[in-house]
């Protein structure tokens, strides 16, 4: 499959001027309907596209337009897709992963930054950007002396127009600092609250120095949240202590921590937001192909699958279609529904990354913790 732009280039004179004109005349990668063409220019022994789209080979070689230094690869990309990638340029037998120099769209995560390709129709949501007209919530860092984990810091968001004589719902976010850094969560909260789409809420951003251990159904983690952190915050702020006003959320292993905490303390958190949860399970045996880190997750999920229970009231589940975890998340939904819990599930043409989780926040939070938009008619 060769994109139309490359076909046109190949049909031309292939002079330096023609190639310069080609680069000046396009933005990259070239999105043409449901196809996308990745392009790199330079001398190399080989160039590979590296991406994390489950279902496609994770490394695909770009072809060279003969007699030029132009490399290209065209793939099908369904409308609405968002794909993070890097290019591997091989020189002197050594491959180097780098961002696409022709593409200024970058997505940051704890490991650095990837280039981002937007398929036809994908738009960065307007509500993630800082809006100077939206009232700003206040953010702070607080420390708690935990009997379980010792001294731990957490982030705290207090909504604009906070009033002591009101009662507020509480949202607890696993990997909270990463949600702030990589999913624009502070701006998202400001904007969605200002638009009346989510409730004015106190938000706690937790982070763990050992997330892969603590989030994998570690009973100490659930105990810390339920018996220490939430009561601590309840002493600081006027919180509505009904389960309907407590929401717990997380992505990836944070999704596992969310569900396992709810399972250990049924009814404590009445709202759960599970984003691309690492819900590995087995139908036979207890070893999962994902490795030993997942063993406690598999044990938990297998138990939960054997005896699913209404551990919360309302659960929002989201997952990217291009994630390897799509099977596990799709499998979870009917299980949750079977318990009588109110469940919503959305899929996006995206991968296991922070911007996917960012883009689903409006839909998830507005359903779990709706603001007064439905009640306000001015």
């Amino acid at each position, binding site marked *: 499959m060769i994109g139309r732009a490359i076909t046109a280039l190949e049909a031309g004179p292939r002079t330096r001027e023609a190639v310069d004109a080609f680069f000046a005349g396009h933005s990259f990668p070239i999105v043409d309907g449901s196809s996308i063409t990745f392009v790199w220019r330079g001398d190399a022994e080989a160039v590979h596209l590296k991406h994390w789209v489950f279902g496609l080979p994770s490394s695909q070689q770009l072809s060279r337009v003969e007699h030029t230094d132009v490399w290209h690869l065209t793939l099908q990309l369904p409308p609405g897709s968002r794909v993070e990638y890097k290019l591997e340029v091989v020189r002197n037998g050594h491959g180097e992963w780098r961002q696409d120099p022709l593409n200024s769209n970058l997505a940051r995560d704890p490991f650095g930054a990837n280039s981002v390709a937007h398929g036809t129709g994908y738009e960065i949501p307007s509500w993630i950007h800082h809006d100077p007209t939206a009232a700003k919530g206040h953010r702070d860092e607080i420390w708690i002396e935990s009997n379980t984990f010792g001294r731990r810091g957490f982030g705290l968001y207090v909504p604009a*127009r906070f*009033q002591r*004589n009101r009662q507020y719902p509480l949202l607890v976010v696993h990997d909270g600092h990463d949600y702030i850094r990589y999913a624009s969560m502070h701006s998202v909260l400001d904007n*969605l609250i200002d*638009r009346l*789409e989510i409730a004015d809420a106190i938000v706690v951003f937790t982070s763990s120095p050992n997330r892969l251990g603590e989030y994998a159904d570690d009973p100490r983690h659930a105990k810390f949240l339920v018996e220490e952190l939430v009561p601590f915050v309840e002493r600081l702020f006027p919180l509505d202590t*009904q389960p*309907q006003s407590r929401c717990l959320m997380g992505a990836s292993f944070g999704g596992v921590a969310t569900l396992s905490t709810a399972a250990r303390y049924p009814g404590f958190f009445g709202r759960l937001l599970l984003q691309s949860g690492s819900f590995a399970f087995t139908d036979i045996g207890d070893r999962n192909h994902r490795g030993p880190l997942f063993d406690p997750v598999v044990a938990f999920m297998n138990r939960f699958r054997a005896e699913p229970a209404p551990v919360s009231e309302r659960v929002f589940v989201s997952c990217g279609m291009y994630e390897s975890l799509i099977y596990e998340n799709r499998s979870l939904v009917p299980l949750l529904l079977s318990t009588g819990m*109110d469940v*919503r599930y*959305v899929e996006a043409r995206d991968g296991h990354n922070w911007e996917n989780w960012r883009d689903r926040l*409006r*839909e*998830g939070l*507005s*359903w779990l913790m*709706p603001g*007064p*938009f*439905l*009640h*306000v*008619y*001015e």
Partner: protein
Amino acid sequence: MKPGTVVLLGPQGTTPDIGAVLADHGIRGPVALVRAGYQEREAEDEAMKASFGMPAVNLDLHKRSVEVFRGDPDFTVAYQARQQRLRHMQTFYRVRLDKIEDAARTVSVRYVEPELLAQEEKVSVDQFRHLDADHVERCDALRAAFARNWRLSDRPLIARHREEIRAILATCEALVIAGGHVASLLNRLALFDVLQLAAAKPVFAWAAGAMVLTDRIVLFHDYPPYGSDIAQVLDAGLGLARGVVVLPDPRRRINMDARGGIQRFARRMAPATCVAMEHGSRMTFELGVLVRASAARLTTTGEVEAGWKGSPSRFSSPVIGSRR
């Protein structure tokens, strides 16, 4: 102007027409203003008052309610418990709506003779109607029991505020009720019994203010941030404007192209008339009865009848059984 006149308007937006409407009805002021729907922003009323073109007094219902809640703790605890119960009931009602919607959709796509499907559609609409009616009945019953148990007029703080409101209203020519948070507005108007205190003075209201004056308040949004939703009855209204369901700001909130959705909604609400009220819309009631309108009507055949004048139209509402 006839006593008991009620005028409902569409949202005011940035170019309010309330001043012109008041003038059309010969009102010269002062008028009493209810801005409780704006909650903590109740007192930010300068621009709104200026748009009236006449003197206006803010009744400060939200502020008064805060004083009551601070000064009468026993009552407040009971009031909050009632509100919590109403919220739970709303949630459960909403869950049941979803199930009826699911069943209606499942039945509607079966491959059987169209005549049977049409019958089944009526059954689906009837199920919505029964659920709506039961919900309003239960909300009514809860509010009535609360009023019986707590005898609001005997609570000294509430009684004092009611007297103050009565005194202000006596000096005013009309009552003006702005929009905002519809539940907050309904609760404050009821807490201080404002419509009773206003006696037969003319009432002008828009958006949420118009909704609370009807006999049934319906929350609706075809484009919620979480994707989709079903219109839901919040509660009974105060009943000054009967026989209509007020739908403010329809362009932003209603999918006017969804003929099936409009049809089902209008049938569900029948025999009440569903009135879409954009900025500039108007409905006038005398002694609770609609006498003229300039608005859009959602019909039981799924049409949007623009320029509806409030008179019987070529679209009729079917009579569908109701427990009420």
